[in-house]
């Protein structure tokens, strides 16, 4: 060793062995914590499987029928897609309260363009997707460029978009029959087919495919890694040379686009297009799915697969309680318990490194 200080001379005789730790004595609970730390989607998956088993035992074979299970999937398709969009935003340590109303206004625009203005359905869909993307980009501009807090920005755009939706549409519902006769393309994702007794819609398939594609993008592309890095520590991300503004801008824009896609799926599921759907708390349902799915509200942690499981958990609980004939408020209560439980587990898993 060249030029070592006096007190460092003894280092030559120091122990050269690489630190080896005894993993035998590690208690099971610690190992579980480590496993969950490296596999963030495991908790919601375990909860999902457990809730299916519990309801299966209490309700019996009726619940286990593939018809029931696929019906649950149909019911969660919209929230699942919105949850995927929400997940992107939450991963950057943001939140998007406007996501539900962006979906509704996109649906109204698609319907009006196709049915009222007589624009070809394909172009109407593109216009609707464009409107959703623009709303998302507005959020992105305010968050990334103006540096306003995402909660405030989307609280504002939630109200703005909702009001615009009501003013523009005059709260007129577009009837199912009109959509079916003039623009059947809008009903595309409602199309269902049977596999045995299981009934799947294109909307369900779209949800699953979307989540898988986003999972790939988040884990195997540079952009996806940047989304995590920006949510984890924006300052470090910036110093590492990530263009944090561009990442945030694109995340909110993409969330708007996905919300507009959810609009297309929702037209397929509902048949008619109702501007008054804007009062439904879709945004909160999407946040719930993401949080139960183990996406940390502090950003940078969680797997988008967890959001899919989170949406399924809510679907299973609500269907199960329904079949048991319980008061629907029990579903709301259980959802609350799940949210708090999920966040508590998230905090516990985080302590793994301390």
């Amino acid at each position, binding site marked *: 060793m060249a030029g070592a200080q006096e007190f460092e001379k003894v280092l030559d005789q120091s122990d050269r062995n690489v630190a080896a730790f005894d993993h035998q004595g590690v208690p099971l609970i610690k190992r579980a914590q480590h496993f969950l730390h490296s596999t963030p989607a495991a908790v919601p998956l375990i909860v999902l499987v457990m809730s299916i088993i519990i309801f299966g035992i209490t309700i019996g074979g009726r619940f286990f029928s593939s018809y029931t299970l696929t019906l649950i999937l149909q019911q969660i398709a919209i929230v699942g897609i919105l949850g995927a969009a929400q997940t992107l935003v939450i991963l950057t340590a943001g939140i998007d309260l406007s996501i539900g109303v962006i979906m509704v206004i996109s649906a109204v625009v698609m319907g009006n363009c196709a049915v009222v203005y007589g624009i070809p359905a394909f172009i109407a869909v593109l216009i609707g997707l464009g409107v959703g993307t623009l709303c998302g980009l507005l959020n992105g501009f305010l968050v990334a460029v103006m540096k306003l807090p995402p909660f405030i920005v989307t609280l504002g755009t939630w109200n703005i978009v909702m009001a615009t939706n009501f003013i523009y549409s005059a709260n007129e519902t577009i009837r199912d029959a009109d959509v079916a006769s003039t623009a059947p393309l809008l009903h595309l994702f409602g199309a269902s087919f049977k596999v045995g007794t299981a009934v799947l819609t294109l909307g369900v398939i779209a949800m699953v495919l979307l989540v898988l594609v986003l999972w790939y993008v988040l884990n195997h592309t540079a952009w996806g890694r940047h989304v995590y890095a920006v949510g984890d520590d924006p300052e470090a991300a910036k110093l*590492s040379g990530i263009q944090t503004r561009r990442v945030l801008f694109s995340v909110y824009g993409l969330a708007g686009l996905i919300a507009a896609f959810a609009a297309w799926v929702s037209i397929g599921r509902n048949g008619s297009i109702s501007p008054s759907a804007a009062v439904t708390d879709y945004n909160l349902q999407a946040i719930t799915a993401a949080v139960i799915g183990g996406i940390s509200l502090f950003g940078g942690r969680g797997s988008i697969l967890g959001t899919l499981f989170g949406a399924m958990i809510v679907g299973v609980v609500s269907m199960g309680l329904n079949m048991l004939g319980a008061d629907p408020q029990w579903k709301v209560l259980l959802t609350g318990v799940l949210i708090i439980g999920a966040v508590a587990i998230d905090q516990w898993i985080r302590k793994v490194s301390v």
Partner: protein
Amino acid sequence: MNTSVQPILSARGLVKRYGRVTALDNADFDLYPGEILAVIGDNGAGKSSLIKAISGAVIPDEGEIKLEGQQVQFRSPMEAREAGIETVYQNLALSPALSIADNMFLGRELRKPGIMGQWFRMLDRPAMEKRAREKLNELGLMTIQNISQAVETLSGGQRQGVAVARAAAFGSKVVIMDEPTAALGVKESRRVLELILDVKKRGLPIVLISHNMPHVFEVADRIHIHRLGRRLCVVDPKLISMSDAVALMTGAKKPPEDALAA
């Protein structure tokens, strides 16, 4: 220092104000090829602001920066990095939840060759992990079993090692190190100092910001003393004692007349 040699990186009259606080007050800076320049100064003297200005992390209000004689204006750390200036920040600028390999390649990821990379933008994880492992082994800093483990599960010294390895792997013209040994034990500090000398041997000049006087005096060729937002003087560690250097940077002693030009 020989006046016929062009500084590789120089700055003149840098000013940076944060509201009423003046962090840089007409600061000058010169780094010559192949040297290790230590920057020392009291807390709040503006060392960090100086380093951030030349590494693109902040944009100075006034003044000019020249890299190899060419005037440059970095608007982001990315631009400085593309120009060949690599920085190890004091807070390390690592993303805790990402893996070691992901962190080392953050912002300049490798993509798979062929269709997967070009059309599906797929990262080339095996290649990134291989290069990350090579770099870490080269530095001998690592006692890490798993290159894909999250950085937050590493000890402070190991994290420092990852950050230093990242800069050494990618720096092509200048490497800046902000307090690289502050979080390290005796053995790890020694390795980092050896690494610094190693990087110098490869011909890369290094800017070393440190409060550790023995380390500074051991490796530095010249010492830039920063005080009250500007360069007070530049001294030769072979001609000055540690206590004199400390006296200069704390204002206990006035700099000699000729030291500014050194």
